[in-house]
Structure formats: C-alpha cells, structure tokens
C-alpha cells in the first residue's frame, strides 16, 4: 500500500508539468489576450502594444512558459493580468477554501442520504417506499442544476412573500447560505449513489454466500450489515471519485448562480478574460485534487476488499 502511495506521489509532479504545458498552449493558441479583453470595445492600438510589452505578452510562447514554470517551481503562481498585479495565490487561496468546503459538504450530504435511501430501497424492494424513493432520486439525478435552481428559488420566493421562513436566494457568509447550494450540488450524485447502492445491494443479496449465511440461521440484520453491506459498497466507492470531479465541475454553475466566492466562479471568468496565470493555477489545482481523490479511492478499495490489488 505504501508503495502505491509513493509511486503515485512520485508521478504527481510529471502530471502537473504536462498539465501546465497543455493548458499554457491552449491558452496561448486561443485568439485574443488579456489586454484585448480588458480594453473591450475601446481600441487604442498604441496603448495596446505598449501594455502587451509591459505584461510580457509579446515574448515567444516558450519564454513565457519558462517564466511561468520557473515561478511555479518556486511556489510562485504568478500575477494576475485581470486583477492588476494581484498574486494568483492571493486571488484563489480563499476561493479554494470555499470550494473545498462546498464540495465536501455536498459529498457528505450525498453519501449520508444516498446510501441509506439506496439500502432501504433494496431491502424493501418493490415496496411503495422503494418506488417513491427511487423516483425522487432519479429526478434529482436527471435534473440539471440550472433547472433545479430556478425551481428551488421559486418555491423559496413563495415562502418569502407569504411571510414564512425562507432562505437567502444567494450569497455567502451565513449558515443559511449553505442550504440551497449544497443541496443543488449534491443532488445529482445523491441520486446516482442511491440508485447504485440499491442495485449493488440487490446484487449482493442474491449471492450464494448470503444464502449460506441465512441457512446457517443468522439473523437478517446481521446478514445485511455484516455480510452484504460492505460488498455492496465497493461499486459505490468506485463512483465517489468521479463524482468528486462532477462536484468540482458542478461548482462552476452553482458558485456563479449563488454568488459564492469559490474558484469555480473565478476559473470560468479567467478563461473569458484570458487571465493565463489564473487559468493555469486553477487547472493545476483541480487536476491535483482529482489525482489525489483517485488515490484515496484506490486505497479504499484495498481496505474494503483485500483481494483487490491496485497497480501503481
């Protein structure tokens, strides 16, 4: 297990290097630059060229890249173009914090609701509870966040105008600001996890070893929790990692629509503004997050089923 961790961690810098090169080239090849984006419709060719020079945008791409990469090696993410010389870390540091909070909360919520609902549905297969639960979960999975948000807002607004307790429609800083975004962000993975847990639990419950357990006279509760549940969780753990990636991309929409100062918000904007240092840094951060999550997933596999051996 230690070897797996070490090998993965060793490969991390190389993965990051490739990611920075690819992101850099894509950014460099995209039409336009931060100066044009900043100047908008006011065109002043002389000032434009002067500013390109000042920001080093007139250098060949490899020189710009080497400048950036050598900064990165020293832990310096560079300076933002758009936010006039503010260090990138200063810009995204707080945002990362907020996005991680939001993502974790959504992950916890989707696991805390998705798994029990799935298990219960499996145990009570084809009951009214099973049908209602799975319909709800399928709906949550299928409805995209940009549809779910207006629906929730409309409901919330009805509460507000009728003087009932309501939530803020957007914003950040107070506990009640969390409710809607976390729910929206967790909705899809909650639905997916619930359905997957149900299917996988049903599959496990049909297995021979459980029939044997039953034949031995073990109590149902013990069979379910001690013998079935753990094996049923393996496929669920498998999807947790992709669903983290899903949460990360989901934050783009959710953070923008709920006006939350995370990095999803910032990364989308920096693409439109060609703020290369910010684009680079957010991409690298997200990539590292996904890589680490994959590693955690692999380790969890081994924990759940000792037969599984993960190749580094």
């Amino acid at each position, binding site marked *: 297990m230690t070897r797996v961790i070490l090998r993965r961690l060793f490969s991390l810098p190389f993965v990051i290097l490739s990611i920075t090169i690819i992101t850099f080239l894509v950014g460099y090849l995209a*039409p*336009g*630059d931060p*100066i*044009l*984006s*900043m*100047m*908008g*419709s*006011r*065109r*002043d*060719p*002389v*000032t*434009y060229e*002067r*500013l390109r020079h*000042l*920001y080093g945008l007139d250098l060949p791409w490899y020189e710009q890249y080497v400048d950036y990469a050598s900064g990165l090696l020293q832990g310096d993410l560079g300076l933002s173009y*758009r*936010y*006039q*010389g*503010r260090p990138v870390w200063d*810009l995204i540091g*707080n945002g990362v*914090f*907020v996005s*991680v*909070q939001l993502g*974790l909360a959504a992950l916890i919520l989707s696991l805390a609701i998705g798994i029990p609902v799935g298990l219960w549905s499996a145990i009570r297969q084809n009951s009214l509870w099973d049908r209602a639960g799975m319909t709800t979960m399928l709906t949550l999975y299928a409805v995209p966040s940009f549809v779910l948000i207006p629906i929730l*807002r409309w409901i*919330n*607004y009805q509460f*507000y105008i009728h003087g009932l307790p*309501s939530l*803020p*429609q*957007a914003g950040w*800083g*107070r*506990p009640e600001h969390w409710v809607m975004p976390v729910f929206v962000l967790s909705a899809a993975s909650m639905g997916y996890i619930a359905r997957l847990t149900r299917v996988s639990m049903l599959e496990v419950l049909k297995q021979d070893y459980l029939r044997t357990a039953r034949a031995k006279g073990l109590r149902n509760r013990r069979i379910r*929790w001690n*013998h079935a*549940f*753990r094996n049923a969780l393996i496929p669920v753990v498998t999807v947790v990692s992709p669903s983290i990636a899903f949460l990360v991309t989901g934050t783009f929409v959710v953070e*923008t*629509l709920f*006006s939350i*100062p995370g990095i999803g*918000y*910032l990364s989308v*904007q920096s693409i*439109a*503004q060609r703020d290369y240092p910010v684009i680079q840094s957010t991409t690298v951060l997200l990539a590292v997050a996904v890589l680490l999550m994959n590693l955690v997933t692999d380790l*969890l596999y081994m*924990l*759940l089923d000792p037969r599984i051996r993960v190749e580094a």
Partner: protein
Amino acid sequence: MTSSKSRMLLAVFLLLLFTFILTLQPISAQAEGVNLRWSIEGITDLPSLDPAKASDSQGFTVIGLLYGGLVRLDGDLNVIPDLAESWMVSDDGLVYTFTLREASLFSDGSAITADDVVWSLTHALDPNTGGWTGPFYLSNIVGANDVAAGSATELAGAVAVDARTVELTISQPSAYFLSQLTFGSAKVVSKAQAEADPTGWENAPVTSGPFQVQAWNHGQNIVLVPNANYWQAPTIATLTMPFIQDSETAYQLYITGELDIMGSQQNGIPAVHVPDAEMMPDFRSTPLFAVRYVGFNNTIPPFDNVNIRRAFALAIDKATLANDVLGGTVVPSDRILPLGIPGSELPIDGLSFDPDAAKAALAEAGVTPETIGQVTLTYGVEGDNERVVTVLQAMWQENLGVAVTLEPLELTTFSARLNETYQTPETGIQSYYSVWGADYPDPQNFISQQLRTSVGNNNGHYSNAEFDALVDEADVLTGDVARRMQLYNDAEQIAVNEVGWLPLFNPRLNILVRPEVQGIVFNGQGLIIPDYSALTISAGA
C-alpha cells in the same frame, strides 16, 4: 464485516466530516445603522481600486464613489466643480487654471494639494502603471503621449502653481476636455500614500471622494463608509456593494429584500422579469447612451460599395426588431448619436425601412444576390446578440434575397478579430454586430472617436474627407456650442447617408431602486448621485 474494518470506514467518513467542520469560518457581525445595499453585477471582484488601473464600468462606479476629481457630472450631465471650486480657461482655450477648495482633505486628514492632482494625472499615463484609460482620455494634455510612451516622466502640461492651483495645458482647444476630466482616470489619489507603499496602497487607499473603504472582501463585496473630510460628505452609515456575476441572482436577491439597488451595472433586470418588474414602484427605465449597430469593413467587397451598405441598411425593419423581437426593451434608432445625449436634439434624416429602395440600391450597386458572393456577419456571443443577428439575417434574406452567413465568436475572440480587422483590414471580417456606450456625454465620443478616418475605434475604416473636416473643426471649437453641435450634426448626416455604421437601436437599462432611496438620479449615463449628502433611505416612505 469485521469490526476493525468497519471502524476504519467510519473513520474515513468522520474524517471527511471533521475536515469540513474545521473549514467553517465564524460568522461576521452585521453593521448597525442605515446600510444601503447596491449590487455590482457582471463581476466577481474589482480588478483594482487604483483609478489608473480600473478598466470596466463596474470598477469606475466604485472609483467614482471613492475618489474626487477636479470636476464631476451633475444630475443633468453638466460639468460641475468637485475638488476644484472653480476654474478659468485662457482666451485661446488651451490653458485651464483650477483652484482647489480651501482646506480640502483626504480621508486620512492630509491636505489635497495641486501636487496630488499632477501626480495622479501622471500616474494614470505612466506605462508602468499598466492601465489603459489614461492614455485614452488624457491624451489632450500637453506631453501626455510622451509620458505614456515612457520617454518622459513628468507631464509637461500639468503644473502645480501653488498648493491650491493646478494649471493644465492642452494641445488643442476642446469643448469636451472638462467632460473627459470627469472620467475615472482623472481622479485624485494621495501621492504621499502611493509613494510610501507603491504596491499595497490600492488595497486600502486613502480617498479624496465621498466614501472610503471599510472592508474589501475579495470575491464577495466592498463595504464603503462616508469620508467625513469630503466637501459633500454622505450621511448614510454604510454602502455595501456585493459583486454578483449573474443578473438573475441579483434580481432574486432584490425581490427577497436583500438589495436596495440592482441592475445599474451591465445588463439590468433580466428580460424575462421586466413585465413583473414594471408593475413595481421600484422600476426605473431609461435609454442608455449607447447604440447597437452593424459595422462594415469599408476596404473589402462587398461593403466597400456605399450602395450595398445602403441596401443592407434600408432592408432592416428596426421597429419590428425593437418591439416584436426584443419586446420593447430597446428604442429603435436611425442615427449614430443615442437618444438624449447632447447633439441628439438636432434631427437626422435616417435610412428607415424601405424594401423597394433597398432592392433598388442593390441594383444600383450592380450586384444581384447571386453575384454578391459570400457575406458574413460576425458577432460576439453575449446577451441577446444571437437573437438580434438571426433576425437581421432573416430580414436581409427576405428583403434583399441575400443569404448572410452568421459567425458567432466568444467575446474576447471577437475583440481579437476586430483588432485584426483594424490592423489588416484586407484580411479582416466583412461586417460585425457591436455596441458603443458613452464614456462621457459628448457627441465627439461617438462621431469623431468612432468614424473619423483611421481613429483607433474605426474598425471598419470608414472614411470621408468632408466628414473629417467637419469633426476636426467641431472637436476644437469652444464657446459656440450651437455651431459645434451643428457641425457634428452635419457630419453625422453624412455618416448616416453613407452607412458608416448601420445603427439599430439604443438599449434601455431597466433597474430596480427601492422607492425609499432618496438622492439618486438615473439617466443615460447610469446612476448619478448629484449631492452625496442628500443620499439616504427615508424611513417614512
């Protein structure tokens, strides 16, 4: 499952939960007193609080609240004294002598001197500052281009005669120079603070205007409190300006009582909510000092031919576009100057919708829909643009029989293409759908700065010698306002006849302001606070 393994699994879950709880921050206390909440939409944060570095309307809105200039605009868009109590203009119209208010102080209590004014103007032009608005708006000051080019460090045309007297010398007489000085790049910052902390001052600036910064919560909001040293200090307790990327979100916050003003930045109330909003006493609406238009590349076929440009202009039914397609959220226009801007009171004989005349113009140009070749309209993907260009395409198809190809581009890519078209028109785009909004309320900002031969914004390289002569005379004419406006009007008529631009409509800005908010004027230039001390929320209303 063995109990040790299940405990480990539980531990992983608890670890996740614990990490999450650790990251929670304590809740900050809410401010007491009258707190005005005014949303700044379309951004997630302000680029900078240095007036020389601000680059978008949102930034300049905040800059305008923080810093004073020599002059500013009143509610009727007249230039009025701000930090300067008065000024004199020399007979040749070249030398402006400003006298600063007596005992004028920055927010930290230090004196605002002529030195600060000169330093601020120079700073806005200095290439190392990295801004671009200074070189654009202050270029008329003698020596401005040398400072901007880095060949001089002192601005020759700006002299601090004594502590309270600033003398600005300009290169050519100009009726709009004072208007240009109302723009953000001419605001006054504290030289002492900026020199003491060249990189950090802008995060917590000493201010010269009605407000100062209490807190700038990056990515969330900026909280302003009155600057008691300003000559017209506000009386409200705080002004909180949350940054809200999405107009829909701002609208939702407004209707649930979390904002007092929304929509004054960027796109206003989202179009789908306008019918609901119109019923509210909070609703305010005005045509903006902006025009949406189709620009043509005048250097390559087919639009190097004036008759083809006329045919395309005559084939557009702007009333249908404005009323049926855009639901009356815009005002159709046949002219370059927006409704309400000085100079627009003089009439223009526009090219109104006439399909027969359009076909005749195309015939006169000697082309048919078959021989005209490929015609492409390029546009940036944003807001209603898609809808508008689709309708234009349909109208050209129906009324001229010409099939126009639409080329959608992401906004910055669109800017890049326009820039290339300006630099190398022969390989540039054929036509484009764009917008221009006033930086200051003067016809020069539209007529001369957009369509005079080879000026930086004339992307389509429209050129007419008579037009140039008229605007050149008008630009330097001072004193005789009526004649100056007439010159612009004559020039505008030429540009309309020759379709330098094909103007389509003036967008309306629809915003929401609580009826209790007093002291705000709303016009084509946006929200203006004519008297900061009168800005308040009246409890009785």
